[in-house]
């Protein structure tokens, strides 16, 4: 029933990408997104495509998994496409009543949709190859300098990892309670909105009760193990950069510089 939810959709595999330091992957994703939304011209587009395809290859994650992520934004893609198609001013190609399709409109629509697709595939590559825990670890370490301005980085990271940890637990719990109530004749599907909302009560009350119980248990367990926040806390597996991470940084920087150069050249000579 609920197993189709793909939040924190880590795909275990043995690839270089999986082994990279999460900070590298965070940085890489950022660079990639910036490059996507700032590039100009065909050569840069080709470079971004080659980059993406090679990363997909390296990741050893089946392509179908990335497509899954795309399904959820199909509507967004269609809307973006349509808006760009009809609302861009320029050289009119076809006119139907008040709707005008312009040459620039087609160009923009295609560009935006491609950007969205690349964006989703790129970011899901990160979540597919990095466990949520690694991700928060990476984020915590990367944001550490902000402790100086009194930002509770450790606490934020801890809250994030607890929240992430609880998602699958609560999904499973919802599934269980739903089944238990269905065994007592509950009907979550039929009826009008009011009836459906009412049918949710037997699901939501136990779910909240159990969420609070779990939160309470966890707090107690943390307390029992003397958790007292981030001060003076060390890590069992501290993040450290290896050779592969340094190489990855170099690749990323080279990619970004190339993209910038291509943009500059395109703007200068093509327009």
């Amino acid at each position: 029933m609920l197993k189709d939810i793909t939040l924190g959709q880590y795909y275990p595999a043995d690839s270089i990408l999986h082994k990279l330091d999460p900070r590298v992957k965070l940085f890489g994703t950022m660079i990639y997104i910036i490059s996507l939304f700032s590039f100009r011209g065909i050569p840069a587009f080709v470079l971004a495509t080659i980059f993406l395809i090679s990363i997909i290859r390296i990741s050893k994650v089946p392509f179908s998994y990335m497509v899954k992520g795309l399904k959820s934004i199909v509507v967004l893609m269609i809307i973006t496409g349509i808006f760009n198609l009809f609302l861009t001013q320029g050289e009119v190609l076809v006119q139907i009543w008040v709707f005008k399709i312009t040459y620039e409109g087609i160009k923009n629509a295609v560009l935006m949709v491609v950007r969205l697709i690349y964006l989703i595939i790129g970011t899901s590559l990160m979540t597919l190859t990095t466990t949520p825990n690694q991700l928060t670890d990476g984020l915590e370490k990367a944001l550490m300098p902000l402790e100086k301005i009194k930002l509770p980085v450790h606490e934020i990271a801890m809250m994030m990892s607890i929240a992430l940890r609880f998602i699958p637990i609560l999904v499973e719990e919802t599934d269980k309670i739903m089944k238990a109530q269905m065994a007592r004749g509950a009907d979550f599907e039929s009826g009008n909105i009011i009836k459906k909302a009412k049918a949710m009560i037997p699901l939501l009350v136990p779910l909240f009760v159990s969420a609070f119980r779990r939160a309470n248990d966890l707090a107690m367990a943390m307390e029992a193990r003397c958790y007292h926040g981030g001060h003076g806390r060390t890590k069992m597996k501290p993040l450290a950069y290896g050779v592969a991470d340094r190489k990855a940084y170099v690749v990323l920087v080279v990619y970004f510089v190339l993209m910038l150069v291509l943009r500059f050249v395109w703007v200068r000579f093509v327009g």
Partner: protein
Amino acid sequence: MSIILDKVNYTYSAGTAYEIQALKNINLKMEDGQFIGIIGHTGSGKSTLIQHLNGLMKATSGTIYYNGEDIYAEDYDLRQLRSKVGLVFQYPEHQLFETTIFDDVCYGPKNQGLTKEEAGLRAFEALKSVGLKEELYYQSPFDLSGGQKRRVAIAGVLAMRPEVLILDEPTAGLDPKGRDEILNLVSAMHKERKITIVLVSHSMEDVAQYVERIIVMNHGEMIFDDAPHEVFKHYKELEKIGLAAPQVTYLMHELSENGLPVDVNATTVSEAKDEILKALGRKVC
């Protein structure tokens, strides 16, 4: 009148990296009025199996027949099935939600389309049969102890008057007294109402003295399906898969190996006592 499983397979998260085949080619016939125990190690597929029996889960392949009708047929009414095959989940106390115990037990009968009065009557009867004190009926279910909550949850299913009652580890997390009370309750229900009962457990000791048939699950496969004393004959194999026969079985086997002519098929303490006394040539008292 029976439940028949025909080559049932079930795979969790099919087509992903986390694929697990939880049921492998299960063929089974549960006759009316039987008291059946399903036993298996943690993760052997017991819960998965029983959720198929009332159509909460749909087999990846295979068919299930309830009273001769294919429950996966297009026009089969699954909600009707669920009111006939009552399922009490593992830790059923986690499903309570109403403001009073009484209202919570009424939930099932109301979903069956009964009037308020009829539902109330059923709830009253069910709460009575699980032995909950009357002064508690209009209290919040969240204020009860774990064992009491479980009784309320069981009553919630009983109130629907199922023809088949399935209980998934009803004794998990209870103390010995609570465990015996629940098991005696179930056993009494079987005797009085003649309904089919399926009891899931991972303790042989628990089910040995109640059930008439034991199904042993291991890694999604059904490895034994027989009367208790027949199953316990394989106590060495049971040990290999992380289960154990009742202690009485071990005792009897050891006695007989050491020359005391006792019947090794005794499964309960009182049967064993009779056997030993008989073998010693004393009068059974």
